[in-house]
């Protein structure tokens, strides 16, 4: 399968995951280059650790903030979040 079709399939799978039933409106036909970017499911692990999400089953006891701190330490990353400022969306 060519990369543009793979990309579209990934986008459809996002809709499916998110429960989105909307139809797609197509403005024009275009392909994507093989030279730049990656289909998100094919992201190498080091990139996934910078553009990923882990859905933790939070245990009772620690706060969410503490759980995030543990995950950062475990995965050896400096930034992670479970919620953030609402400002850009107001």
């Amino acid at each position: 399968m060519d990369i543009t079709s793979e990309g579209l399939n990934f986008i459809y799978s996002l809709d499916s995951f998110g429960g989105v039933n909307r139809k797609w409106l197509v403005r024009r036909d275009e392909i994507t280059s093989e030279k730049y970017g990656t289909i998100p499911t094919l992201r190498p692990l080091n990139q996934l650790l910078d553009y990923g999400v882990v859905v933790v089953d939070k245990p009772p006891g620690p706060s969410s903030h503490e759980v995030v701190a543990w995950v950062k330490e475990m995965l050896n990353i400096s930034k992670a979040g479970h919620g953030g400022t609402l400002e850009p969306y107001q």
Partner: protein
Amino acid sequence: MGWGDPKVTGVLPITLGSGTKAVGMLMLADKEYVAVMQLHGEVELSRLQDVIKEFTGEIYQRPPVRSSVKRRLRIKKVYEIKVLDVNYPYVLLRIACEHGTYVRKLIHDMGEVLGVGAHMRELRRVRTGPFREGEYLVTMHKLSEAVYMYKELGDESLLRKYILPVEYVVSHIPKVVIGDGAIDALAHGADLAIPGIVRLHEGISKGDIVAILSLKGELVALGRALMSSQEIMENSKGYAIKNVRVIIRPGTYPKLWGKYRSS
């Protein structure tokens, strides 16, 4: 966020690295909980069902004293309350609600209206936006096992099962897909003009938050619609989506490749 009580368990999506720029979408997302309500006196099931109906829909809430948000009286939407089981004095409830709804307060207030009083004994979040109790839900124990397998044995497989691409954080919102040539301008904060758009969801209204994706499905930016889907399809130029938050790393796609120009 909205957890407050450390004894709460359940679905806690954690964005990693630069993906944290998209985390606001989780805060705004709808939630679902399973809660144990402890009644302080006996009530007829039919009376309980009546009160539940009263608390379904739009309700008033003022955030508790210990919360970090301004204590204004707010209207919150409770989409559904379902009684899963009753075993006096406990009632097992499933509650689907808008972000920022305090379940503890909701249960307390239902108790007041029932006349006997009630409090929330236990709370578990079973859905945060698009994330539920699926295969990808991972305990801290299992996650550390996955890390061990990777670090000590060079086996990525378990870690890749539990770390999803950040794009799943926006899977539940309307999407606009752009051509490769439009990406770098957006990665530098430019708003999205119509010529850059390849395809988009129907039914987007002006003011909606949308996810701007590449043709490969990469999350380029979060935006707010300046036009509706219909307007976008009917016009050939003009700014369609305001760039609210850049997600993709600038330089992932080259500058001004192709016909797209941001001005």
